[in-house]
């Protein structure tokens, strides 16, 4: 008999340096818990995130990818998150069109003051992805050891 | 007495300047008789200042003030509300036949637990 192991998803979170990464730090400073599944990659701005990175993450076995940036209007670089918003809107719509579960991708605007929001978002996202289970549709099997 | 003179009279008797009040409410916050009063110490100050004195004179609150001076002690701006209440009370008592306590009431109030001195002092306070 197989013993079913509890599914622990791999979540990649791209956080912009100025708001969301600071928001993530704040949730740490306030000791707000969220699952260890979330690993944060620091980028200067949400507009630095290439759709390529997101596909790459899924290809390499990520189960969910979330992009966090400053709230629209608050971008450190004034317009970065507006461009990111359009890019991600189109990309996510496309992924859905190709039959990839829409809940695996998310964009959330988290300011440097929203430590609680960051933790809550991550908790929710991890729960959602855990419910979806393993990402099979986008995984590149060659990358598995 | 006319309203304006009434206010001047009370201010003269008490020596209090109600304008100094900044309406923080600490006097009422500290008052042990608060629950039994219709008008609370801060309202006395406020209403005297705005010349709205007759309701105060008609109020039983005048006789609920213990003159404990907690409000005087604690007022951050040294307005001395108790003195003001005392002045309003005096204004009432000084009117003809307005004694709040009459000597013939005293026998009925005698009580084993109450020191007689309390009655004497009440007599002095509430009667001409």
């Amino acid at each position: 008999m197989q013993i079913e192991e509890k599914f622990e998803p791999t979540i990649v979170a791209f956080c912009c340096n100025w708001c969301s990464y600071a928001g993530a730090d704040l949730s740490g400073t306030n000791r707000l818990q969220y699952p260890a599944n979330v690993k944060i990659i620091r980028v200067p701005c949400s507009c630095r995130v290439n759709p390529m990175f997101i596909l790459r993450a899924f290809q390499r076995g990520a189960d969910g990818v979330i992009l966090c940036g400053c709230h629209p209007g608050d971008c450190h670089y004034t317009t970065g998150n507006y461009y990111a918003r359009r890019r991600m809107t189109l990309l996510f719509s496309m992924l859905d069109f190709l039959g990839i579960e829409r809940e695996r991708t998310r964009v959330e605007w988290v300011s440097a003051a929203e430590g609680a929001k960051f933790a809550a978002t991550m908790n929710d996202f991890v729960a959602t992805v855990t419910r979806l289970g393993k990402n099979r549709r986008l995984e590149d099997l060659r990358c598995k050891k | 007495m006319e309203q304006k003179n009434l206010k001047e009279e009370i201010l003269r008797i008490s020596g209090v300047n109600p304008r100094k009040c900044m309406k923080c409410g600490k006097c009422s916050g500290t008052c042990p008789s608060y629950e039994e009063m219709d008008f609370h110490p801060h309202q006395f100050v406020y209403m005297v200042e705005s010349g709205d004195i007759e309701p105060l004179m008609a109020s039983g609150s005048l006789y609920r003030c213990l003159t404990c001076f907690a409000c005087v002690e604690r007022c951050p701006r040294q307005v001395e509300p108790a003195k003001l209440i005392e002045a309003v009370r005096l204004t009432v008592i000084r009117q003809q036949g307005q004694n709040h306590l009459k000597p013939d009431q005293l026998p009925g109030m005698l009580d084993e637990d109450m020191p007689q001195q309390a009655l004497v002092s009440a007599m002095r306070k509430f009667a001409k």
Partner: protein
Amino acid sequence: MQRIGVFVCWCGSNIAATVDVKAVAEALGKEPGVVYFEDYQYMCSEEGQNKIKNAIRDYKLTGAVICSCSPRMHENTFRKAAAAAGINSFMVEIANIREQCSWIHKDKVSATEKAIILGRAAIAKVHLNAPLTAGESPVVKRALVIGGGIAGIQTALDIADAGFEVDIVEKKPTIGGKMSQIDKTFPTLDCAACILTPKMVDVAQNEKIRIFSYSEVDAVKGFVGNFKVSIRRKARFVDEVKCTGCGLCTEKCPQKKVPNEFNLGLDQRRAIYIPFAQAVPKVATIDADYCTMLKTGKCGVCSKVCAAGAIDYKQKDTFVEEEYGAIVVATGFNPIELKKYDEFAYSQSPDVITSLEFERITNAAGPTGGTLLRPSDGTHPKKIVFVQCVGSREDGGGCGKTYCSKICCMYTAKHAMLTREKYPDTEVYVFYIDVRTPGKSFDEFYRRAVEEYGVHYVKGMVGKVSPENGKLMVRASDLIEGKQLNIDADLVVLAAAIEPDQSARPLATMLTASMDTNDFFTEAHPKLRPVESPTAGIFLSGCCQGPKDIPETVAQASACAAKVIGLLAKDKLTCNACVAHSSEMLCNGCSTCEKVCPYGAISYEEKEFRMPDRTTRVRRVASVNPAVCQGCGACTVACPSGAMDLHGFSNRQIMAEVDAICK
């Protein structure tokens, strides 16, 4: 292959309590390229930094990974340490195992596992790191101040005092701003003109300061240290050099029915005017909207009376192009429009006025010569009601502002006090929600209004003002006594909320400076960098950043000047090292990147290339100005060919991190 050292910090027990630091160090020690690993209680301490420095020297490290607190905390510390040990500071990467690991997880096993993965990602990134050097750009040693109110004046004077040239751009015909309209200043009650006009004269006489009055900023290009600004000098139809400011034209002009904006429309001026007697520059201006000559070509009286021959009806807007190293925004404020506040009858009765209008009525140089008279019938008001917080502290939905306008409590106390002083027979009521008087000698000032001048302060808001038979019936609540009041007032003065000037929003777009939802400029840091905009080289002075009274404005103006002087004192600026760069052989020249760059850092040039097939070709390629680029990376994603990449956050570095995390 890099030679990488891994340094795991305990942060006392902050990290070590939840993360098995030894296990992390050992696991990361096994990663390819890692030749040294170590853990220590406080890596950021001098001893910890020495460990890093020594390891770099002893093990000939080319890169370092520090597993510690957030890079926002100590990245610079460790970069400096690495640089001191002789490697490029950008060869250091931080794995954030405190804020983003030990502090948010309780389970030691999963936290340790995560710390190892974060370490691996950092190692993967360092493998692809390359030494970066920040470029340098020269600084134009001149400053531009936009706005000639007290904030702009003070900033300009301070900068000029340090020996730098300053230009002031003021959209009105004269500098002076709101302060010139004010009668007296709290808490000392000295007259505003007496303290402001000498400063205005100082500005006019200062050799380092040029005033561009009746001018606006038209376009801003460039970047910190090297702004190129185009200033539009609006046609005032008067030659500024020739005009002596004698004022004869302003007396002879037949067009007398022009609302006088300086007195907020409470009286009238001529079509050619000098806003007030102490105006700087003291030069007449023709109001093109009202001038009969300009509209119909028939009049020309001012030209006839002008002995200096300064009138020029054919004058056109001109543009001045100037270069600056720093730009100061001092665009100030305005009271909000009160038309929507029907309950206060502002539009229905001339006797309901704003506080700024009250200032003009009580000002000796105002429409009434300083005598307090009702605008409607010129009688002396016997009962005045002041209403505080009109349009301030409202919930977002309405026409008001969510913030406290800050200055109203004090100026209302001032108005009430002055009224009672000059006219002791006048009854004065002030309706307030809170009286907010933080500031030196401010509360004492307010108490004086109450105690010495007998101003009736009533806690509660006015609900309704209705004009009735020449009186204003004011219905309000008295929250302390718990009753409704009805007052038959002669004059109602509304403390209107203040808002940033309308010119601020388009200016912010030109400057690429950020603003909050209320159109106040955002400071680089609300506490630690309050006079700088996040956009380098843009500085904030006065009410454009938030409501302020005069002492605060002047303090901020001087602080702002100090920051500007600090910038202008430098000969060269060090640029951001993490900038975009284009691989010319890959670039298609399609201009997509140029369009998304918020800083205009990308330009295109035709260049001759020797191609792989040994032909030469002239190609259109992008080039990034590293002095302008702020490193956001918008261009890198817009570029279809992958020619554009970002130093310090390259495509391959980020993908290496992704790979390390997803492994």
